[in-house]
């Protein structure tokens, strides 16, 4: 079953003479449980595509269907809800909040999820904490959960970021150069974690220009100048 369906997507910035077409007629589908890499050189439009897939940006033209829903019809609030419930992001630079602990970073995703829930369906403080601890433990971070990101290594920070992405049990994980800031050993560990998640049924989309990373994926989409070359 297709989880992601992208049909003739265009993305343009600017107007008139300064208009720039970053994505041109992009179409593809990704099935539930698939692990797909999007490869391409810098400026090829792969990050823009990932932002559209992650509902952080809107396409100028075309259709994007996520879990049978045309996202163009969603309100700002519904897009935020979808990001929180169905999508998990993993970034190259980890993007953890430095001032709070690893556990608090993970809990933040669940706390934000409460903003979308009705009063009788809100997660309790204790539930938020236990779920976050459980995910951190599953990623081998039980000894580091009360440390701030600055006290953790790159690999540990990325695992915290993965824990944050996973804590809401999303359908799809969008990873933007997840190993870009890591050494080889940590890169392998992170990719093994992502592969393991795919095996548990998660859909994984990885942006990378590292062939070794792409090798973990079942399918590769190559981008060049805003277009997909299969």
């Amino acid at each position: 079953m297709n989880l992601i369906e992208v049909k003739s997507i265009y993305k343009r910035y600017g107007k008139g003479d300064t208009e720039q077409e970053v994505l041109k007629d992009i179409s593809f589908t990704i099935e539930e449980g698939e692990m797909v890499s999007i490869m391409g050189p810098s400026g090829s439009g792969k990050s823009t595509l990932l932002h559209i897939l992650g509902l952080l940006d809107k396409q100028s033209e075309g259709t994007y269907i996520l879990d049978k829903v045309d996202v163009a019809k969603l309100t700002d609030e519904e897009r935020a809800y979808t990001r929180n419930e169905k999508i998990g992001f993993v970034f190259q630079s980890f993007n953890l909040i430095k001032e709070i602990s690893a556990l608090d970073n993970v809990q933040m995703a669940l706390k934000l999820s409460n903003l979308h829930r009705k009063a009788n369906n809100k997660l309790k403080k204790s539930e938020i904490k236990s779920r976050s601890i459980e995910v951190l433990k599953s990623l081998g971070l039980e000894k580091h959960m009360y440390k701030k990101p600055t006290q953790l290594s790159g690999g540990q920070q990325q695992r915290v970021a993965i824990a944050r992405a996973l804590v809401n049990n999303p359908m799809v994980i969008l990873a933007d150069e997840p190993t870009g800031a890591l050494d080889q050993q940590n890169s392998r560990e992170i990719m093994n974690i992502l592969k393991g998640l795919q095996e548990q049924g998660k859909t994984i989309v990885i942006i990378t220009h590292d062939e070794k990373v792409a090798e973990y994926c079942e399918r590769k989409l190559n981008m060049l100048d805003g277009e997909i070359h299969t």
Partner: protein
Amino acid sequence: MIGLIIESIQKQKKKLSLIALQFVIGFTCLLLGVGVLENTINFKKAISKFTALGNIHVYVFNEAPVEEGIKYGEPIITEDPTEQELKKLDKYRDIVEKVKKEGVIDKFGLFEKRDGYKDQSIEAKIDNSFYILNKDMFSLLTFDIDKGQIEPLINYNSDKDYIPVLVSKTLENQYPLNSQHDIYFADFTQNVEKCTIKVVGVLSKRSVFFTGGCTRLTENALTNKEYVIIPQYGDFHWNTTYEYNSLVSLTNNVDMVEKLAKLNDIYEKNEIKIYNNPLKEEVKEYYSQRKPVMIAIIIFASIILLLSALGFIGTILSSIISRKKEFGIYFSIGISKKNLIKLVLGEMVLLFVSSFLLANVVNFLMLKGFLADSGIGVSFMATFATLIIITVLILPAIIIPVRYLSKLQPIELIRERSN
């Protein structure tokens, strides 16, 4: 959302504490300024409710203190009272008689401030003041009674074995309604007399009474909180009563100048120089004394608040700019723009509210501490008025950052993050 707001503030506590401090100073000054303003308005209200502002305070102005070390108006307690002092007292009594007899004035109100004692020893002095009023004084004043009645004092004719009294609200617990107490008063010659008083009325919280013994009758009337009002049950014993504690009303205010001149003549014939001061002049003086203080405090508060508001706008804007990465993270994990604005707005509102509450505490401590004698009280109206002023002043400081925030796009924040 509240939990998220509190967590977010905790993260920025260092940055926000300086702004909060500025706000607390500004809000405190404003609370104080509004308090002074309210006090000034209340002063006129209270005095005009208590007595007609057309009534005149007549007082004797001594060239020098009667005795060295004794301030004007303080009762003179001498070990061996001189004939001269007793003669003076007689003279005052005669003058009052004459003034009344000649019909120069309508009412000649007098009150005597006495110290009360629990027993005959000087150590047993009671803290509160006792004021003995003549009948004319009662007719010149309007007492705001909370419980009981004033009539037994007005109609007092010594036919009972007790003296009916009124007590101020703050003394209600010490002197409950219908309770009787034995009080000892020392007279001019140091003789001690025992009086049994019975509380027949309790005055309202808003009631005021003159402190007595000063050239401005209304001075400190608002801060005078603990007193007992007693009808005149015998002669007045203190020269101070005749020198400072008098209030007169003229039979016909049209001929006021002429009548005051006549009153002056009667005193001058007895080699006593008097001054008169209509109460409305006293109120005016009070206003003019307070005005510069009030203006200074309010200007100071406005400058502080303006600077705080500008500083706040700057801090919040720079904080938003420096927090773009954080906001980008929030967006990526599912916050909507509406909730992000709520979060930042909540931080600002919480900062204002906590600063305002803290300012109220500081203001309260100041008013109960070194400003206790200022007569400025903590009032709901002053607090409410200050809150309105603050809201109007602070609103732009909230709107500007929120407008900036509403224009931000998630993707801009993500790009910021990538940079």
